[in-house]
């Protein structure tokens, strides 16, 4: 550091702000900007002039150039980036536009004035080839306008004004970046956020005690955060203020202002305010206090910051809630929203303003904890929670432990103040079936997953998913998961086979997966079962009425049209869970199961009749005649030997096809004959079980099946294979041959460890299916096993299917994790919807 820099002025500039450099042409604005700000922070009008006209000095392009400048600055500010405008800005009108821009994006406008003598400016311009022709009067006018403006800058709306006079002061000045007051992202707590106290000092003491504070200090160094409305209505506002101010002064509490403090603060400053809504009580109580205390209260209220962004940006605390675009912003309307919330402009039957349900629209990543609107119970909605549980109205005083997300409350000692209207039955947008927003699923999207990064969804696929989701799916609240598609094993070269387990074992061995489990592939339809302990549990966790869960297909459609049949299946499942003691064993009151429901004919009967049985019927009808005719011709000595042999083979293939599909059909009567084979426990309360190793999974499911008294549940046969041991691999192949030889559909090979990764750290396929030779007739046609057909079919392409399987798998895991973390419904739905959308991507449907 040189001497001069030490002596120079230090200009504080807020980290998120719109900095307007004010100075005549040639005053050194660009040089100043270059020296003190990042090149990308600075937008100059000359540069924008060049963009639109190819000439940085073309004055006729000025209007367009400023359009571009405002547009770029707007984009940067919307993204939360400090922006420095390098234009003369000596005219009030041009500055007004910039101030409006700053307000529009809720950032501080800051002016830095470079007041340099006219001669210096002229000299510098003369030295520059492109400005040498600038008339002296232009610079003269700039300087005159600047001098005239300087005194009014603060009144114009600039929140900070730095004026540098003369070349030396400009040269010596330095810029220091300041945090915004509301930016406490560096504080990580842990915090105890406390709802609206309203003068209930006894309840506050009780709550602080329950939270573990002694004399306002927590032994573990926790910080209390008050959401405001400390005063009014209650019995002891001064006591509450005294406690909170002491804690704040000692550094063990933070506080944001509520609308009641704000109003009392204005009263203390001598403004005329109506002594309504409980302010009269505060005024009366405070009149008993000393003048000195009232003065300290006034200063305290004056110093309150509208909201805080805490814990690395994960937590926002304010009084009345705050949409994401206002987080960390600084403007009058941000403060006003933080204090009063948003209203619709309507008033309700009690004459109170109708509040806009901003939390329903909230999609931000930061949790917003607020108060202001009394509700009977604090509950999360879209990552927001209102802690005002009406302590002063005889409700309770509630706190939220952060990051634990635990609610702690104490009951009110009594009704201290009669409410104007009853506490709302439900938190805004709570559990009353309000729908998701289309903006969360529509169009081209990318879903962030923790397992495979961003997964893209194309617009046409989202459109198809929207159609199916809207018209046919079960209630999205009961649809927390959709199963991913599964890739088949690499194509086999073994004679007569298209799929064979040897390739599956080899693929896992190559991926570094040593232990796999082969699970029998059931011959039915995929079904996901959400089963709750009872209707109350369903209501409590999923917010639905009447039902106790759901049973749905791989595209989210209800398995049975009749809700009563679904309930019957869920009832049988529930009895098995009861008997197996799994509620307690898994510490839950609901289970999400992945399963296969049999017979296939139960759901696919339409397809069976129109496609599979039709092929059987047609072939069955045609071949007797064909064979008789060809035999007749042969008997006459016509040379049809080749034709006859081929027709006999084709007839046999067709018969084998008919046998193949018949195995998946049997008649059912009500639920008699219906079987459900669960093969994975996906989730329980607070936990995704997708990572639970498959041997543990199967042990739990075996317990479930054992305790089923209804005959509904069916076990999943399995064999464990060591992919590195040829003996074990051979046993696996034999098992499959035996299984499929008896008419089984095939098997699925999975890494025992469930979520496995390859040596490069990428997710490996969660399962690979090996379908039986006869079953594949249903997929590839009756005659696929003919050598010439097999030769052609072996040229199938698996890569897209594999990639799709991994992407859908990652989305499914993501949905389960979001469910486990009690994330808002739209977050879970986003991932589930994406799975459905991906299912409509083009891929060979026979894979």
């Amino acid at each position: 550091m040189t001497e001069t820099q030490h002596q120079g002025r230090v200009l504080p500039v807020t980290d998120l702000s719109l900095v307007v450099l004010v100075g005549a042409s040639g005053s050194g604005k660009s040089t100043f900007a270059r020296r003190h700000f990042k090149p990308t922070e600075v937008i100059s009008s000359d540069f924008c002039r060049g963009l639109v006209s190819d000439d940085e000095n073309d004055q006729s392009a000025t209007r367009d150039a400023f359009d571009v400048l405002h547009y770029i600055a707007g984009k940067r500010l919307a993204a939360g980036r400090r922006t420095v405008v390098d234009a003369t800005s000596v005219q009030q009108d041009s500055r007004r536009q910039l101030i409006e821009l700053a307000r529009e994006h809720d950032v501080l406008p800051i002016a830095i004035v470079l007041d340099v003598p006219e001669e210096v400016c002229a000299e510098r311009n003369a030295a520059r080839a492109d400005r040498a022709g600038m008339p002296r009067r232009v610079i003269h006018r700039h300087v005159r306008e600047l001098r005239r403006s300087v005194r009014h800058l603060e009144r114009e709306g600039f929140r900070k004004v730095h004026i540098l006079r003369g070349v030396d002061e400009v040269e010596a000045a330095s810029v220091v970046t300041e945090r915004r007051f509301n930016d406490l992202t560096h504080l990580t707590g842990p915090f105890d956020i406390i709802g609206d106290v309203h003068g209930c000092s006894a309840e506050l003491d009780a709550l602080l005690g329950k939270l573990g504070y002694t004399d306002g200090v927590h032994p573990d160094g926790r910080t209390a955060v008050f959401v405001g409305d400390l005063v009014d209505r209650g019995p002891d506002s001064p006591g509450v203020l005294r406690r909170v101010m002491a804690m704040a002064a000692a550094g063990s509490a933070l506080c944001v202002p509520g609308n009641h403090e704000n109003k009392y603060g204005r009263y203390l400053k001598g403004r005329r305010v109506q002594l309504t809504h409980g302010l009269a009580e505060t005024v009366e109580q405070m009149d008993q206090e000393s003048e000195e205390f009232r003065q300290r209260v006034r200063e305290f209220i004056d110093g309150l910051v509208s909201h805080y962004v805490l814990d690395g940006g994960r937590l926002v605390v304010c009084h009345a809630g705050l949409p994401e675009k206002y987080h960390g912003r600084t403007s009058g309307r941000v403060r006003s929203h933080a204090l009063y919330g948003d209203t619709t402009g309507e008033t309700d039957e009690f004459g109170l303003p109708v509040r806009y349900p901003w939390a329903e629209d909230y999609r931000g990543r930061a949790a917003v904890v607020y108060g202001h609107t009394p509700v009977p119970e604090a509950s999360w909605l879209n990552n927001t929670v209102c802690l005002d549980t009406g302590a002063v109205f005889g409700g309770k005083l509630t706190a939220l432990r952060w990051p634990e997300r635990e609610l702690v409350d104490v009951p009110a000692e009594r009704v201290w103040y009669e409410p104007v209207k009853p506490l709302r039955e439900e938190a805004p947008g709570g559990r009353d079936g309000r729908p998701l927003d289309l903006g969360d699923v529509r169009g081209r999207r990318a879903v962030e997953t923790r397992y495979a990064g961003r997964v893209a969804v194309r617009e046409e696929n989202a459109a198809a998913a929207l159609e199916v989701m809207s018209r046919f799916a079960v209630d999205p609240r009961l649809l927390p998961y959709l199963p991913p598609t599964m890739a088949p094993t690499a194509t086999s070269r073994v004679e007569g086979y298209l799929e064979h387990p040897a390739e599956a074992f080899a693929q896992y061995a190559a991926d570094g997966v040593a232990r796999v489990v082969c699970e029998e592939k059931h011959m039915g339809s995929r079904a996901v079962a959400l089963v709750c302990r009872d209707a109350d549990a369903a209501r409590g966790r999923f917010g639905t009425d009447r039902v106790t869960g759901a049973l749905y297909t791989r595209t989210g459609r209800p398995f049975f049209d009749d809700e009563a049949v679904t309930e019957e299946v869920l009832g049988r499942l529930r009895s098995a869970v009861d008997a197996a003691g799994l509620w307690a064993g898994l510490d839950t009151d609901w289970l999400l199961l992945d399963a296969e429901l049999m017979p296939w004919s139960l759901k696919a009967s339409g397809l069976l009749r129109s496609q599979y049985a039709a092929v059987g019927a047609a072939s069955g009808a045609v071949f007797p005649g064909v064979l008789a005719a060809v035999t007749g011709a042969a008997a006459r000595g016509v040379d049809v030997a080749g034709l006859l042999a081929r027709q006999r083979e084709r007839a046999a293939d067709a018969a084998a096809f008919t046998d193949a599909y018949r195995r998946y059909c049997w008649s059912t009567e009500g639920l008699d004959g219906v079987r459900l084979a669960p093969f994975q426990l996906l989730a329980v309360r607070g936990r995704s079980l997708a990572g639970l190793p498959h041997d543990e999974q199967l042990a739990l499911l075996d317990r479930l099946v054992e305790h089923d008294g209804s005959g509904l549940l069916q076990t999943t046969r399995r064999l464990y294979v060591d992919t590195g041991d040829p003996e074990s691999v051979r046993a696996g192949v034999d098992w499959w041959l035996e299984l499929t030889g008896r008419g089984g559909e095939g098997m699925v090979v999975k890494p025992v460890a469930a979520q496995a990764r390859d040596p490069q750290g990428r997710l490996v396929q969660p399962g690979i299916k090996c379908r039986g030779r006869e079953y594949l007739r249903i997929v590839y046609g009756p005659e696929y096993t003919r050598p010439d057909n097999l030769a052609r079919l072996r040229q199938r392409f698996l890569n897209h299917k594999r990639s799709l399987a991994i992407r859908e798998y990652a989305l499914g895991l993501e949905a389960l994790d979001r469910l486990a973390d009690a994330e808002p419904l739209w977050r879970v739905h986003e991932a589930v919807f994406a799975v459905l959308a991906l299912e409509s991507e083009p891929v060979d449907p026979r894979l």
Partner: protein
Amino acid sequence: MFLTLGTIGTPERPATDLGFLLHKHPDNAQAFSTSYGTAHVFYPEADARRCTAALLLEVDAVALVRRGKAKGRGGAPDAALAQYVNDRPYAASSLLAVALGNVFSTALRGVCHARPERAAEPLPLRVEVPALPARGGPDLVRNLFEPLGWTVTAEPVALDAEFPEWGDSRYVRLVLESRTLTLAEALRHLYVLLPVLDDAKHYWVAPDEVDKLLRAGEGWLPGHPEQKLIVSRYLSRRWSLTRQAMERLELVRLAEADDSEVEQIDNAVAQETETEEKPAPLAVLRREAILDALRRSAATRVLDLGCGQGQLVQALLKDPSFTEIVGVDVSMRALTIASRRLGLDRMGERQAARVQLFQGSLAYTDKRLKGYDAAVLSEVVEHVDPPRLSALEYAVFGSARPRTVLVTTPNVEYNVRWETLPAGRPRHGDHRFEWTREEFRAWAGAVAGRHGYDVEFGPVGADDPEVGPPTQMAVFTLVAKEAKAA
């Protein structure tokens, strides 16, 4: 794919003359290659008394699956095209008719140089088609062939003998017998009527199909009692080409993923099956009632939620007092048809500025729907599963919140008045429920109460004293806040 064609001879007129007439020697087996596979012609029996020719088309199913280069990845076939498992190798579809036309083209024209006199005269004929796909069943088969002089035996083929509860397949075993037709006539009947009975969607049809039909139908089609059906079905296969092009492959794939048929989910556009359309133009009455109510509410900016094929949007456009008309539907197919119906891409700028169509769903709230004067839900609510009606309710009345909402829905009490509608059956296959007048009023009243609307009810169509009108309408009006505060 197989059929036999036999005749009975006399000492003067040996049955083996059939070989001359068909231009195929009875002692040889001949093979002809066609674009779908190999056609074989051989004679299971051939002597002076009886002679039968057999046509067997061996379809190459694997080659039939087109390998799309653009669609899918790596040249893999796409969903709708991958039809390995189908009846084409077995059933006597239109492909067999094409083979018949190729292999017996001369005989089809009635030309026979060796036995010209025999070609021109009738002969005893027996045609057997063991697996004939027959949309319309044995009755239609009889109605098509009997007027032409055939004695028809058409026996339905069971879908699967092991599952008698599945009933009959769409195939019949067909035997045709006649003594009054020439061979050429018989072949031309088969050439036209096999594809008509097949009535399948996905077969390629040449652009000169009309000419072919006129030629093959000469002499018998013009007087046929089922002429209209024959022509429309024969040529409808051309229309189905456009239908296929419109098919939403994404939906086909979702149906396949769920082991169901695409018709089960891609059914938003009704194929004019509404019973109600026939006796009275109820749809027209409904639109008039809606327009009346909209004019009374002085709405100028109107949402048509569930606009379907855009009939109401079209009617609204004709009235300049509606300055902004938005049609919303969840079905992309419906929107495509609506857009075509309205001619959106050819519309003048000023008109086009008044109308918008986009995909939306009332299962979700949608910011784009806020701030309109009125919303119409015409025949929409009954397509929503009852557990999801609360979502629709909030999306419309809680979130979009237009000043006026019109809801029309069938009055189920009136269904007894539809003679063609079986008792207890809904008017449309996709109706999840149909309400009585009382049920509708109860729902609408509760909705209005929850969201601050007043509601009035009115009939659409003649108000039957006993069962009420065919369609019921509710008009919801947002209660002005000032009025309430006072």
